C-alpha cells in the first residue's frame, strides 16, 4: 500500500505534525514537573529526620559512638548548612540538582553523583535484561495456552498466579542453590560478565513475567472472543495465525501501559537481588547506604531512580502509538 496521493496527505500531515509536536512538548513539561515534585518530596522526608544530624555524621566518619565537641558539631553544621532556614537548604538542594550536584556522601566523602555513575550501569543491565526476559516468557506462555481449555492451559494460568506473588529474593535463592551451588553452572556471586547476569535476571524476570502474563492472558482471552477474530478465521486464517497476527497485539497493550510500573518493580527487586548475588549496582548501594544512614547517597539514588522511571514512562508514552496506531490518527 505504498501508493498515496501526495497532495491530500501533506496538509493533513502538517496539521497532524504540529499537533504532535505540541503533544510531545506537553508530555515533556509534565515529566519535568513530576521530577521536580519527586525531588521536593524527597527533600521534605529527609528534613523530617529526628536527632542531631551533625553528631551522626561525625560518628559515621569516625566509626565510633562518642559525644563530639561543640566545635566539631559547629564545623559540620557550617559545612552542610544545617543551621540555615529550610527554605535556603531547599533552594541549595534544587539548584544543586539542576547542575548535577547531588551532594557529598557522609561516609565516603565523595560526590554522590560519582558513586552512582560508577554503579548504575550493572543495574541498568540487570533490569533491562530482566524486562526483556519477562516479556518473552509471558508472551510465549500466553500465545501457547491463553483462551484454551484443558489441563496444560489451566496449569500455566495457576503457575503465573503463583510466580507473580513470589518475591524475587526467594526465587533468587532457589536458583542460586540449584544452579550455582549444587550444579555449579553459574558463578555464585559478583562477576559482571554474561554468565553472572543469567541467574539474577531470571530471578527478577520470573515474578514479573507472572504479573505481565496474568494481565495479557486475561486480555488475550477477551480479545479472542471479539468478532474480528471470527472475521479473520472466516477468511481462512488458522487458530495459531489469528493468535499471532491479530490477538497478540491487542493483548499486549494493557501490559505495555504497565511497563513504567514494571520498571519501578524491577528497581525494587534489583535492590534485593543485588544483595542476594552480591552484585554491584545502585540497589545494593542503596541498601548499604540505608543501614549507615548516609542520607545524601540515599536521597541521591532515590531521586535518580525516580528520574529514570519518569524517563522510561515518557518513552513508553511517546512510543505507544507505534503499537496502537489509533492514537496517531486521532
Amino acid at each position: 500500500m505504498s501508493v498515496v496521493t501526495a497532495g491530500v496527505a501533506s496538509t493533513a500531515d502538517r496539521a497532524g505534525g504540529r499537533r504532535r509536536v505540541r503533544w510531545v512538548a506537553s508530555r515533556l513539561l509534565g515529566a519535568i514537573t513530576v521530577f521536580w515534585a519527586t525531588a521536593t518530596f524527597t527533600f521534605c522526608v529527609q528534613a523530617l529526620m529526628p536527632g542531631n544530624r551533625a553528631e551522626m555524621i561525625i560518628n559515621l566518619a569516625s566509626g565510633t559512638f562518642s559525644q563530639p565537641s561543640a566545635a566539631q558539631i559547629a564545623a559540620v553544621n557550617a559545612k552542610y548548612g544545617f543551621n540555615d532556614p529550610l527554605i535556603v537548604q531547599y533552594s541549595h538542594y534544587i539548584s544543586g540538582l539542576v547542575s548535577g550536584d547531588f551532594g557529598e556522601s557522609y561516609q565516603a566523602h565523595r560526590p554522590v553523583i560519582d558513586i552512582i555513575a560508577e554503579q548504575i550501569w550493572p543495574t541498568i543491565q540487570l533490569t533491562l535484561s530482566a524486562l526483556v526476559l519477562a516479556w518473552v516468557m509471558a508472551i510465549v506462555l500466553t500465545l501457547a495456552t491463553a483462551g484454551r481449555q484443558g489441563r496444560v492451559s489451566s496449569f500455566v494460568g495457576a503457575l503465573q498466579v503463583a510466580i507473580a506473588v513470589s518475591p524475587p529474593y526467594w526465587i533468587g535463592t532457589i536458583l542460586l542453590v540449584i544452579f550455582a551451588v549444587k550444579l555449579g553452572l553459574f558463578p555464585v556471586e559478583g562477576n559482571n560478565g554474561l554468565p553472572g547476569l543469567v541467574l539474577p535476571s531470571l530471578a527478577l524476570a520470573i515474578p514479573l513475567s507472572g504479573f505481565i502474563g496474568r494481565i495479557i492472558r486475561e486480555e488475550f482471552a477477551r480479545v479472542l472472543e471479539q468478532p474480528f477474530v471470527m472475521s479473520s478465521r472466516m477468511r481462512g486464517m488458522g487458530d495459531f495465525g489469528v493468535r499471532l497476527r491479530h490477538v497478540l497485539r491487542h493483548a499486549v497493550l494493557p501490559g505495555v501501559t504497565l511497563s513504567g510500573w514494571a520498571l519501578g518493580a524491577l528497581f525494587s527487586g534489583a535492590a534485593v537481588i543485588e544483595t542476594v548475588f552480591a552484585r554491584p549496582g545502585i540497589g545494593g548501594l542503596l541498601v548499604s547506604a540505608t543501614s549507615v544512614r548516609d542520607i545524601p547517597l540515599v536521597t541521591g539514588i532515590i531521586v535518580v531512580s525516580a528520574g529514570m522511571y519518569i524517563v522510561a514512562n515518557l518513552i513508553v508514552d511517546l512510543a505507544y502509538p507505534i503499537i496502537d496506531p489509533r492514537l496517531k490518527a486521532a
Partner: protein
Amino acid sequence: MINPPLLAVDNLRVSFGRGNEVVKGVSFTVEAGRCLAIVGESGSGKSVTARSLVGLAGQGALVQADRLSFEGRDLTALPDREWRRVRGRHIGFVLQDALVSLDQLRPVGREIAEGLQLHGEARSRTERTEHVVRLLERVGVPEPTVKARQLPHELSGGQRQRALIAASLALDPKLLIADEPTTALDVTVQARILDLLAETQARGKALILISHNLAVVSRMADEVIVMRRGEVVECGAADQVFREPRHEYTRRLLNAVPSMHSRGTRLAPASAPRPSLPVQPAAPSYAENPLLQANGLVKRFRRPDGSLHTAVRGVSFSLNTGETLGIVGESGSGKSTVARMVMALETPDEGEVLLNGAPWTALPERQRRKWRRGISIVYQDPLSSFDPRWTVERVIEDSLPKDEAHRRARVTELLELVSLSNAFRIRRPLELSGGQRQRVAIARAIASRPKVIVCDEPVSALDVSIQAQILDLLGDLKHQFGISYLFISHDLGVIHHLSDRVLVMSQGEAVESGDVDDILLRPQCRYTQDLVAAVPRLRFALAA
C-alpha cells in the same frame, strides 16, 4: 445428470454439551444466483446455523448433519486444514457491525489483503495493493487508495461495512453468507448496503442472509427459512411465506412489525387480560398551554482535541397533554441530546425547556428536584439504569413519591400494570430478560404518576415480538392514564405506529415537523424523503 446444488444441507444439528441442542435439524439447498434468508429472533439458532456452514460453530460445539456438501463435495468430516481452504475462497462470510469485525489496529487494506495472502493469490505486494483498491472500488468506497491505508475507525459505518464485504469477496467465492449485515447501520446506509448485496447476487453469487428484520428479508430473499428455538417452523418461497404464512409463529412475527398500517391496533396477541384499573381518559387537549415546550435548544460539546461540536442547533417543539410526539433521526442527529435536555440532565447552551408553562431547564437543580416526578424517562438500555445490587421491588419503591402510603401494595399494583407477577419483586436486574427489564423500567417511570415520559429508543434493543409487547404496553398506559410521550427512535415504523406528531432531526437540526401522516407519507423536505424512501418495507401485503 442434474448438477448438484451449490450448497446442500440436510438435517443439520448443533449442540453445546449434552442436552443443549441449539440447532435441531435444519435442511435447505442454495443455488447460484439465489438468495436464501434465515429469519428468527435471538436464540433461534440462526447464527449458529450459518457458522456451522463454514465449520466455525464455536468452541465445544458438536455439529452433525446427514449431508453438508458444497458443489457436490462432502464437508461433514473435513479436517480443519481443509476447512481453511474452503473459508474465504469458496464461501465468504460477512459479520455484523464492521467496527468490531475489523481489526482496529490494522489498516483496512491489510484486512482485505489477508485473504489473498492466505490463499496464495496475488503474491507481490503491489499486486495485492492493486487488487485491494479494485475491490474497494467495486463495493463503492470513495477514494479507495486513501481508505485502504486508514484504520477502521477513520471510516464511516457504511464504508466499514463495504470494506468488510470487499474482504469477503476478495477471492471471488461462489457463496456469500451475511450475518445481520445491516443491523447496526442507519436506514439510508442500510439501503445502500442491501443494494450492494443485491448487485453481488445479480452477478451470479449465491447469498445466505441471516436477519431478524423481516422487511430486509422480504426485500432480498428468494427463499425464506423461519427459525425458532433451533427449529425450522416454516420454509418456502419468500412470496408464499410472506403472503400466506402457514405457521402461527410466522403470522405473529409479521403482525408484530410496527408501521403506519398497524396504527391504533395491538401488535402482539393479548396474553393475559390486563387488570382494569380506574381509567382516567384524557383526550389530547390543544387549547391550554402545552405541557412541554422547547424553545431554540442549542447544545455544544467539546471534542477530545479541543474543538467545539454543535450537537443540537436551535430545536423547538411543543408537546400537548395526552399526545405522543415522535422524534426521528439517524445516529448523530442529536435526538438523544434533546431527550437529555428535556430531562434537564444536560443544560442547554441556548434556549430553554418549559414544563407546564413554567421554567424548567432554567431552574437551579435544587428547585427543580421537587418537580422532577412530573417527568420521567425510559432508556434504551435499562440494565445500566438499575443499581445492580437492588431488587426490582427496591428499584420501584425508590421511585415512589415520599408521601406515598401503602408502598408495598403500590409496587404490586405497578408490577401488575406492566404485566409482571409478584415473583419478580425479589429478582435483581441481571436475572431479568431484556423485555422484563424494560417493563420494570416502565413501572419505575410511571411510579411517580408523571404527566410526561421521555422514551429514548426504548425498543431498539429488543426482538420484534418483545418490541410489540412493549409498544402495546406503552399504548395501554397512555390510554389509561393520559400520559404524554416524547418518543425518540431511529425506526420510522415504530414512530409511525405510535406518534401523533413527528419531528425529523438531521445533524442537530429539526428539518421538518407536523402531523405524522403528513410528514411520513408526504414528506416535503429532501432529507425526510430520502429517509422514508430508504426504509425497507414488507414487500408482500399480508393476506387478511
